[in-house]
């Protein structure tokens, strides 16, 4: 036991007392337990089982819907989606950001240290959970205020998972896996022999799975945290996290380069020697294949015996976990400053150039939009080019031309249309998300309509130079173009 673990041990006694006090204070409260938010991607790797799979369509090609400039790098924190459509992500400026569906920062919550590794998990009442490098686990209200926090014995790099009963699980460098009630009471603490940077996954029967740097995969009873079984992995797992696949088979990689399939009873199904340390959670394709990131590869393993079916070799490390769209398209972030989309058969579909390494695992929204953070301080939302995205193909596709000229000195023109027609508007927004001008409001139909923007706001005042977003909105569908004003 190292010093930080000892610290954690010392704290546990106090924590238990506090937990009992809090539990007593909340006895008699109706069951208002907040479960996992009903959104397309409410937590790390999409769901408590960590499958990383979405029911949303894939993007045939990438187009930037928006990018939100944050205060600092997004390191390995992956975004999560709230039921309100907001996107939440942690950044190196010790801030948790809530970004609106149109890319404006709604609020930022300041933690006591960088939110470097932990990805947020969102509860149905809007509570956002995230761990910090200041050894603190935070529960933040939907409005961006602190709900409660818990001081662990060391850093919290693990991403929290929210169980069906609302229990929140998260690991810490103090060697413990913690189970919290939504009100902040500690339900139980499971000590391990070393760091728990791994993010817990939850099986269909509620069993909690987590790896530890003590070299063990733990299967824990959800009610008590008692050990159902352990499985020796041979090496620590660092940030590698388990995923629960079909038939409750658990998949997990290690820093020693081995990738395991473990049966729900705790025996080995197979092992694959990847040759590289692993730091991600595997994803499960609809057919059961497992997709892992290792070194600079994305690899597909068959569930029967772990044999590699295909691999895509990138030009730099791929450290993210992957996200999988309904058609099997796989998204991965890469240290070559890009987001990669890979066809289900293992060929590159497209690569989107970001402004820095992408170690923030991509996520997929209900409409197929792809969100990811980046070293360049931006949270991006990608969409399919020139289509109305929400609702998928059943909704009318929109068209909005790129402004011309762009940049402009105050006069630029666009055309827009909606093949299936509808009431809509063309509006201009600042980077802060405020609407500065409505260019058109009324019926939008298949016949393209031209519109001119003079670079002024609603009252005719000349707007300052900068980046603006021109948004076409018809019904629930939206399409955004960037317009740059220079003076």
């Amino acid at each position: 036991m190292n010093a930080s673990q000892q610290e954690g041990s010392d704290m546990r006694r106090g924590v238990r007392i506090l937990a009992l006090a809090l539990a007593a204070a909340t006895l008699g409260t109706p069951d208002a337990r907040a479960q996992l938010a009903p959104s397309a991607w409410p937590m790390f790797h999409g769901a408590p089982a960590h499958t990383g799979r979405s029911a949303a369509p894939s993007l045939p090609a990438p187009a930037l819907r928006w990018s939100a400039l944050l205060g600092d790098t997004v390191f390995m924190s992956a975004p999560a989606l709230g039921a309100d459509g907001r996107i939440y992500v942690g950044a190196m400026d010790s801030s948790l950001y809530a970004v609106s569906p149109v890319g404006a920062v709604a609020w930022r919550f300041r933690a006591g240290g960088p939110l470097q590794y932990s990805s947020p998990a969102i509860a149905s009442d809007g509570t956002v959970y995230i761990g910090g490098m200041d050894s603190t686990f935070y529960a933040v209200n939907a409005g961006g205020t602190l709900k409660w926090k818990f001081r662990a014995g060391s850093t919290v790099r693990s991403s929290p998972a929210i169980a069906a009963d609302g229990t929140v699980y998260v690991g810490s460098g103090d060697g413990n896996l913690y189970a919290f009630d939504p009100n902040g009471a500690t339900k139980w603490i499971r000590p391990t022999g070393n760091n728990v940077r791994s993010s817990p996954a939850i099986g269909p029967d509620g069993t909690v799975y987590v790896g530890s740097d003590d070299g063990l995969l733990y299967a824990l009873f959800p009610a008590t945290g008692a050990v159902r079984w352990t499985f020796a992995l041979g090496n620590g797992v660092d940030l590698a996290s388990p995923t629960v696949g079909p038939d409750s088979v658990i998949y997990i990689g290690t820093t020693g380069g081995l990738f395991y399939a473990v049966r729900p009873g705790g025996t080995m199904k197979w092992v694959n020697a990847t040759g590289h340390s692993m730091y991600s959670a595997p994803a499960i394709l609809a057919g059961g294949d497992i997709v892992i990131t290792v070194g600079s590869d994305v690899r597909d393993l068959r569930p029967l015996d772990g044999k590699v079916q295909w691999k895509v070799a990138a030009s730099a490390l791929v450290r993210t976990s992957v996200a999988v769209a309904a058609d099997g398209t796989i998204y991965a972030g890469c240290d070559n400053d890009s987001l990669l989309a890979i066809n289900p058969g293992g060929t590159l579909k497209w690569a989107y150039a970001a402004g820095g390494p992408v170690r923030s695992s991509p996520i997929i929204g209900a409409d197929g939009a792809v969100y990811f953070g980046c070293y360049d301080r931006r949270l991006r939302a990608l969409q399919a080019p020139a289509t109305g995205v929400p609702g998928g193909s059943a909704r009318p596709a929109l068209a909005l031309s790129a402004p011309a000229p762009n940049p402009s000195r105050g006069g630029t023109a666009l055309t827009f249309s909606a093949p299936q027609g509808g009431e809509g508007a063309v509006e201009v927004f600042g980077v802060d998300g405020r609407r500065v001008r409505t260019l058109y409001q009324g019926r939008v139909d298949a016949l393209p309509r031209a519109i001119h923007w003079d670079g002024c706001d609603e009252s005719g005042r000349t707007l300052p130079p900068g980046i603006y977003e021109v948004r076409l909105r018809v019904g629930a569908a939206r399409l955004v173009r960037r317009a740059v004003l220079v003076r």
Partner: protein
Amino acid sequence: MRRGIPALGMVALAGAALLGAGCGLQRQQQVFFAPSNVANYVLFGQVTRAGGPIAGKSVKLYSTASGALLDSLLTDATGGYGFPSAPSGEVMVKVSSDDSLDFAYVRYIFTRSSSVERDSIPPMDLRAYGCAAIAPVSGARVPVPSPNAPLAFSWTPMSVAGTIKYRARLADAADSTVWESTRDIGTSALFNGIGTFGAYAGMLLGPGEYQWRVKVRFPTGVTAATRQRPLIFTSGLAGAPR
């Protein structure tokens, strides 16, 4: 090739003074120890035991890419040594010991950007300061481990200040690495019977003769290892699920 450094006369120099002399130490920012006639050497340092200099100790220089022994010499009265030439690329400076209180070897591996680069090697102290393999005992016979019945390796840590990291290394009878535990400040590791190196990667080990040792990494980047301990894996049931 073995030779001493006649009348070398070592002096410890402040890093700033040597660097200030413009002698091309680009990679390393710190000069730990240098011969008085340092200009004659491209790679130099000092070997000690429990802090005291060791004279006449063999210091070997290897190319890690080829494994070839490039040069070998003996320390002088101050424990100092200096190699007059060394190639570019990754090289290893290694000192071995048979003293039971020492590590089996202490070594330093690093990359030289050019053959004329002049590098000061961090101090290499042979004393193990109590670091020793504990379990399994030498020659132990144990069932082949499995993920459900892993074998625990344990050792005593060095009794010195500073953060020192350890790992257990298991090798086959020919000293090919089978598995290494994750490097950590802890003093135990679990082996699950599955190799992670070379031809053993992903393989379930069979019964047979193996050997294990503890490897130590110092903050300077110098590494050391305890003596090898024979270990025999026997056939037999190594564990149903716990």
